[in-house]
């Protein structure tokens, strides 16, 4: 049944959301975004299997490309932040707060 896979997808998305909101370590936040993207991929593949269509699988490839680009930029920003501020804690990054 497709609903088992869809509920797994929703659970992964919710867990990733929790990681993004509740953690303050930038590394963990980036990992949580990856978990969310993977949750979406599971749903896309489940629908692709149900409808017997390859188009969902192509879209999963796109999501993987975006995830790779996002992680490389995110980690580069993290390195730049750590070099200037000596911290990876989002609570310490307040210079835009006014």
């Amino acid at each position, binding site marked *: 049944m497709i609903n088992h896979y869809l509920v797994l997808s929703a659970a992964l998305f919710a867990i990733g*959301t*929790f990681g993004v909101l*509740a953690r303050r370590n930038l590394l963990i936040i980036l*990992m949580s975004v990856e978990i969310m993207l993977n949750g979406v991929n*599971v749903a896309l593949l489940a629908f692709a299997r149900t409808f017997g269509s390859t188009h969902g*699988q192509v879209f*999963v490839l796109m999501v993987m490309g975006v995830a790779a*680009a996002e992680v490389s930029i995110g*980690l580069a920003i993290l390195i*730049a932040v750590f070099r200037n501020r000596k911290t990876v804690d989002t609570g310490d990054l307040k210079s835009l707060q006014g």
Partner: protein
Amino acid sequence: MKRGRGPETAAAVGENRVSIDPVFAAAGGISLVAALGVVSLRSPVHAAISMLVAFLGLAVVYLRLGAPFLAAIHVLVYTGAILVLFLFVIMMLNLKPDELGVEYPLKTRALIALLCGGLFALLALPLWQDNRSLETPTPPGFGGVETVGTALFNDYALAFELISVLIMVAVFGGVLLAKRKL
């Protein structure tokens, strides 16, 4: 293609709860527990290893969904590239335990956990009603390199090119951001 959802739907609802694929249950359960580990472990190295387990479990789920090519790409891209990038950055930063920062107080985290539980319920309750079968016949070669590649380079050639532009921009941006001075 429209699928008939007439009298056989009622029978499908009846046997809904009993038929859960054991391989899917094991792999999905492992990846769920590992995903919880990613968001709850304090050390980034432990979280990264937990993420490795979650991704390998998800690769098995992808195989169960008839996508062997994407399962292979998933292992290559996520555990091969993204996870190694994470571990490389963790090694480069070499954070001491007191440099990991302070987390939010337990009360705040419990509140956020409650909100995320609500989000899960909101997403999962309607999705649970969807009782379409995964046993539908698929076209020959479904999920293989040939069918995915044909769709990618015919119907989605423009999207493919745009992804290549995006990755090129990401390469430039990564170099610019991480380099101390050009």
